């Protein structure tokens, strides 16, 4: 693995690359989860790592998410940097008590004596025609918990750089991987071990008329909507929030100060989603700049339907364009 290697990779391959890099450079990095070793993960995110680093550092666990979450806490107090995989975000709930009550609190509780440099990885979001509970996007639950970072990459490059940052971060990170775009595109990624900053939004496209704020798989539809809007003569700034908590409000407010309009797009249901916090922050912090209300384009406030109707749940390019037309009209 040379530091100059550049590869065209998908998002999930970039995850694998980042894990391999960091494991090679820091022996404290260990992986645990269901089916991650011999099978390489149900999405192949950890494929080949057991062969490179052995069963001691790539651990297939018994089937118990609470145990996975809590074992990682114990490991972390001993100076390991565990990267724990939840097979799907829909199965993270059994691990909530350990994540909320321990991973997020160990540093504070011990006044810095012990801390939890854990990454909790989980594929999230819908649109892959999977059974019930395989389509969750409940990032808002974790974003509300002080002491956690919640990071969501939306491209191979950001997956690589943000995962490296997450592993190196001395505090727990919930790292959610948009599985709908795990293999949607390839991007050339330089395998150089360079991390990207956490706590920072990424401005993917600059524009003057409206700020489109999104993260995860919806970045795809949002960029497509921006293209359509450009055809209509509307110049949209597109921001990938990436770190949904702690939130980089500065970048968002600066953008809205320029455009005067904001549309937030996310796949999670609307009520109490991360979009609510962003909308509230903008409405408060950019009150005098806003020329139209901040509008949210989101999933419905219901359970993601099984696959025959799941596309009807997800926000579409058309929904985004329509919302922008609505705020532009004001």
């Amino acid at each position, binding site marked *: 693995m040379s530091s100059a290697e550049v590869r065209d990779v998908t998002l999930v391959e970039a995850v694998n690359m980042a894990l391999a890099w960091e494991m090679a450079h820091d022996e404290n990095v260990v992986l645990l989860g*269901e*089916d991650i070793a*011999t*099978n*390489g993960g*149900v999405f192949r995110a950890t494929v080949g790592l057991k062969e490179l680093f052995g069963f001691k550092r790539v651990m*297939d*666990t*018994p*089937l*118990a*998410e*609470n*145990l996975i979450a809590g074992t990682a806490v114990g490991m972390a107090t001993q100076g390991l940097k565990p990267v724990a995989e939840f097979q799907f975000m*829909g*199965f993270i*709930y*059994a691990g909530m008590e350990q994540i909320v009550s321990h991973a997020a609190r160990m540093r504070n509780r011990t006044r810095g004596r012990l801390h939890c440099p854990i990454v909790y990885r989980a594929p999230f979001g819908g649109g892959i*025609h*999977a*059974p*019930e*509970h*395989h389509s969750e996007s409940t990032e808002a639950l974790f974003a509300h918990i002080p002491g956690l970072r919640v990071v969501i990459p939306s491209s191979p490059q950001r997956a690589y750089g943000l995962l490296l940052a997450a592993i190196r971060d001395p505090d727990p990170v919930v790292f959610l991987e948009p599985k709908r775009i795990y293999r949607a595109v390839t991007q050339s990624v330089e395998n150089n071990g360079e991390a990207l900053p956490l706590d920072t939004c990424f401005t993917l496209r600059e524009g003057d008329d409206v700020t489109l704020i999104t993260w995860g798989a919806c970045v795809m539809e949002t960029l497509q909507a921006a293209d359509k809007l450009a055809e209509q003569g509307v110049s949209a700034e597109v921001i990938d929030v990436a770190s949904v908590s702690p939130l980089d409000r500065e970048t968002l407010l600066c953008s809205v100060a320029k455009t005067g309009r904001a549309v937030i797009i996310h796949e999670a249901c*609307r*009520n109490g989603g991360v979009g609510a916090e962003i909308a509230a922050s903008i409405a408060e912090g950019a009150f005098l700049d806003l020329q139209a209300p901040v509008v949210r384009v989101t999933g*419905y*406030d*219901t*359970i993601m*339907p*099984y*696959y*025959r*109707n*799941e596309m*009807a*749940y997800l926000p579409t390019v058309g929904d985004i364009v329509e919302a922008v037309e609505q705020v532009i009209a004001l």
Partner: protein
Amino acid sequence: MKQRFEFHVDSTRYLDDHGKPLDDLPAQAEDTERTLAAYRNMVLTRTFDAKAIALQRTGKCGTYPSVLGHEVIGTAIGQSLAKTDVFVPYYRDQAAHILRGASLVEMLLYWGGDERGSAWKNCPEDLPIAVPIATQCCHAVGVGSAIRIRGEERAVVCCVGDGGTSKGDFLESINLAGAWHLPVVFMVINNQWAISTPRGIQTGAETIAQKAISAGLPGHIVDGNDYFSVIEALDAALERAHAGKGGMVIEAVTYRLGDHTTADDATRYRSAEDLKKAWEKDGIKRLQNYLHDAGLWDPDKEKALQAECKQTVEKAVEEYLATEAEPPTAMVDYLFENLPVSLRAQRERLAAKYRGGE
């Protein structure tokens, strides 16, 4: 001063790999009608299974978990449960569902991505499939509690995989069944694998049945490919439960003959050899041999049964494929009994957006 507390679990097996009795058969073997019905259900289940996989491969069904290797166990469950009992399944219990009355069409709808697949008109009290592993165990003891509170003579069978026995839900639930003396029979289907994770990684325990000891429940092991050992154990466990004598844990040992689901490729993590050996223990072939030897079965009957099963499955597939998807508004219509005001505008938006299909 020392004191010793002793515990044990037994295992039983009646038929060898070829269907030859190893021992005196249990009383259940005298009921040839029931045994023949069991065999027919196993064949129907396997026929259905092959078709469902084929549908998935051709894009006509979603991810589907093959029941190959579980047919004997599910069939025995379906037979031993009384109509008024409650079945709490996991996701690989097709053989039992058929006997409980969940239709083949409903099963296809479920795996085909349609919520109506759990509407089960014929077994309205059975719990739907719980996708999050082992969570159904808590439901089972809840149902058992309701039965106990009301003083009814009903019982519950709850299925869970070997993987599922590592999760707190199973362990907490068997503990409650023991503490509250609940009429719940836990059927652990130990098919040696949890996706790619072999049984040996789930636990250091020699058997899974011995987990019952932690809850003060009896534990028992059966050969999951031996219809007689499974049905005998279940009949006995349910008799105990119906008589108010509490629950138990049965470990049925088998082998997952298929991939974990259609999304999995088991050749990545297990050997062709192991699989071949497991096929030699196949419980359907074994029962067929037994019936044959007992003069209860012949190639003509087999041919007729195969044809009949094929036809039954084809008919169900036709009906399934002809079933139109629900309107998208269904996604909000079953959330609460009454649509909350806050969802009305969203429902209207959905209705408008998909009027005539977008």
